């Protein structure tokens, strides 16, 4: 858990993935699934659920879950993620609070380097 930084690159966003996430999460906001509906709200096409992006960022910490858990996880959604976009998630260790509480800055960027998510994770060791 003392890694300075951890990162993960995700496969290009696929519509089937958005459909699966809608089903698994119960979020059926059509702007994530139906292009026509997305266009009605001013978007060029469907976008990935912010929560799916957040979940992917959270998965950067999964290999450490045997020994601890994500205690706090807060993010701001900065940009849209479209089909075929490649998202890279990074976690950079910022601070070690008490014994066993690590604060990371997390970011997600798309293939153009644009930041689409920014936030923090506090990881607690048990």
């Amino acid at each position, binding site marked *: 858990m003392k890694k300075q930084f951890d990162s993960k690159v995700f496969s290009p966003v696929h519509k089937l993935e958005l459909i699966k996430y809608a089903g*698994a999460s119960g*979020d059926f906001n059509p702007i994530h699934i139906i292009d026509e509906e997305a266009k009605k*709200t001013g978007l060029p096409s469907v976008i990935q659920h912010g929560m799916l992006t957040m979940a992917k960022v959270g998965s950067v910490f999964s290999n450490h*879950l045997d*020994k601890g858990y994500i205690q706090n996880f807060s993010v701001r959604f900065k940009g849209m993620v479209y089909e075929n976009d490649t998202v890279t998630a990074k976690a950079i260790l910022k601070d070690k609070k008490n014994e066993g509480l690590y604060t990371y800055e997390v970011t997600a960027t798309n293939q153009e380097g644009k930041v689409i998510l920014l936030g923090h994770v506090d990881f607690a060791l048990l």
Partner: protein
Amino acid sequence: MKNLKTLIIYVFTGELKLWLILRNIRGRKIIMYENFIGKQSVIVKNIIERGAVKKFAEAIGDPHPIYFDEEYAKNTKHKKPIVPPTFAKTFNYGQIEGLELPKSGLIHGEQAFYYERPLKTGEVVFCSRTLKEINEKKGSRGVMLFLNFEEKGESVEGETIFVAKRLTIITEKVRQQMEEN
């Protein structure tokens, strides 16, 4: 804004509320979100099901055995399978009576989860949500509404397991579409 009188008054006073009152006189359905600040939904009992957690883990591309494999979890600090950190978003938090949100087009601005401890598969969680605050921002495409919700998950014993904070954005366009339907 289709009504000239409405437009003139909006431009001169810059007062959104006055504009809404004028629109109300014309008989359009207005949703006054401000009336719901501080209102909490009725608490809903949620049971964390193993199948749902596994499906969620697969859907987010993170099928880690700690989320559903009991044998694997026995050898971890948690002893039992835990749920992914964003799984709490899938709970039923109940309805804030009378508050209607657009079914299409809501934008998620921010999200945060604060856990006292990890959630375990099989647990019973009592969930509710409260509308805490509303902010407005006038942009080039009209007025954007920022709704701050606080969601909470409590154990059977009444202890808070987690608090989640969410910022939902309603654009002018989405609000109009909803009010016209």
